[in-house]
């Protein structure tokens, strides 16, 4: 089976520091792939390279076998590579509804229309409603985003990624700062995504990772330290030493 998203010998240097060091990674179709590692291991940098926010120093990125290493970020999104952000990135003066409507409209290819109202596309409202319901944002859909509680903003962060109809979804600590009780719900929603959507997850909560992921890649100092299925990684003594040791320090 050919991987959906694949990197070969990917390197990103900031001066002398190799934030991503010769990373070759294959994300299979329908993967539930976790990316773990101590702070500063280069997890977010890797996501930034995959989505085009950063340009790699060397190496290639392929989507469905085609080279997308230099493709503009917004074009990668339109090909289905969608991400969420560890630090919430939203449109603060817009409402959840208009944010989602715009994302859906981009996906449908109607976002460049400049002479028709946003609401003229009849497909937008039902799709937005499904997302608003699913993420329990329906009652705040008309409030400006900056007035929402943190938990709601976190939900919108993920809802906006789903509005883009991802084929490869890159989740950068999706439940960072979300209260314990709501984490499980967010993960249930993510787990309920169609089986052929490939999901890459960065997460620190090991219980969530081991519940959710089937494959785990451990990054240390920008390089792949270990890779394998959940069972193997969970019982790998080297991973325990490197990763869990680090976490004990906080």
């Amino acid at each position: 089976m050919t991987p959906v998203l694949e990197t070969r010998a990917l390197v990103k240097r900031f001066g002398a520091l190799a934030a991503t060091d010769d990373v070759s990674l294959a994300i299979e179709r329908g993967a539930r792939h976790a990316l773990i590692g101590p702070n500063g291991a280069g997890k977010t940098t890797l996501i930034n390279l995959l989505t085009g926010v950063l340009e790699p120093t060397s190496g290639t990125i392929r989507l469905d076998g085609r080279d997308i290493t230099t493709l503009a970020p917004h074009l990668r999104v339109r090909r289905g590579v969608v991400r969420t952000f560890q630090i919430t990135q939203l449109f603060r003066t817009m409402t959840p509804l208009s944010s989602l409507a715009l994302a859906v409209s981009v996906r449908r290819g109607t976002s460049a229309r400049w002479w028709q109202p946003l609401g003229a596309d009849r497909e937008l409202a039902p799709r937005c409603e499904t997302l608003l319901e699913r993420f329990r944002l329906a009652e705040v859909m008309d409030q400006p985003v900056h007035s929402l509680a943190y938990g709601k903003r976190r939900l919108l962060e993920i809802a906006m990624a789903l509005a883009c109809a991802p084929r490869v979804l890159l989740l950068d600590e999706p439940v960072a700062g979300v209260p314990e009780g709501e984490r499980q719900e967010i993960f249930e929603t993510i787990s309920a995504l169609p089986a052929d959507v490939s999901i890459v997850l960065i997460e620190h909560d090991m219980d969530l990772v081991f519940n959710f992921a089937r494959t785990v890649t451990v990054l240390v100092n920008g390089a792949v330290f270990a890779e394998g299925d959940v069972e193997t990684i969970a019982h790998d003594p080297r991973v325990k030493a490197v990763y869990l040791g680090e976490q004990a320090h906080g």
Partner: protein
Amino acid sequence: MTATTAAASAVPPAGPSPAAESLARRARWRWWELALFAALPLVWLLVPGQSLLVNEIAIVALFAVSLDLILGYAGIVSLGHAAFFGFGAYAAALFAKDVLPDPLIGLAVAIAASAALGLATSVLILRGTDLTRLMVTLGVASILYELANKLDWLTGGADGLQGVVMGPLTIPFTSLPGFAFDLAGRTACAYSLVVLALALLACRRIVRSPFGASLEALRDNRLRASSIGVAVSLRLVAVYTLSAAIAGAAGGLLAQTTGFASLDVFDFHRSAEVLLVLVVGGTGYLYGGIFGAIVFKLLHDLVSAWTPQYWNFWLGLFLVVLVMVGRDRFVRPWTWARRRRAA
């Protein structure tokens, strides 16, 4: 989570759903918008003695609306928007003088010329920070100022382009004789008000479209806008070009209705003034430029009549008070006495 499956299999409710209703509301006319559009012809009818002032206000308002498109909607700061205003003014004046005195064709030429300039200079505002954008826009306007100054065989240099004679304003697709521009400014005033109204109607549609929503998105967060697939650079180029075109229309109107174009149209004070006008009226809701222009010009008129030398003092005081009190409270004097709730 049960909501997931329930929402997926839900039967669409009868009538518009709350989300559809809310999206439709975005495009709906507010009562005060209708009142504003209704007021435009009334102003022309009811204060005929002030036509020159109304003409001036309409032109500044149109110029400020063009700035709002880039500043209020797309978040592009500019200290050189007079570049497009002035370019439109000179284009209209030169066209009338050397090619054809017809005002409508001249206005179209002014719009096209400024749009082309906007398109060409839009690459300069794509990268960098707000500070670099301030410098670059300021620089473009300064370059044009000096070009207009140096190319005196074309522009008249420091003397300006004088003796621009406009033909009568004809109504397109009719054989009516048309209206000559008169000294009292009746024709000019009506002309500017109609152009302002048409430009507003067009802008209103544009900012409520998906394109308009994507401008707001990239103003709020460019990184996220591109992460949901918005072509940020293309959007910026498009809105900058559109804004330049409308600024060019305002400049064209000025040259046509005053029969004159001088270096003053490119001057820094023009760029600064339109920014002040827009900030006084409020950014990001399209009508701020209109209210700002009315307040600014009326204030200017009143204060200059009372104390000609100290206009800048009173303007400065007004701005300081406006900013300290806040616009929302300023337009609601009955709230001034009320104590602010502790934050």
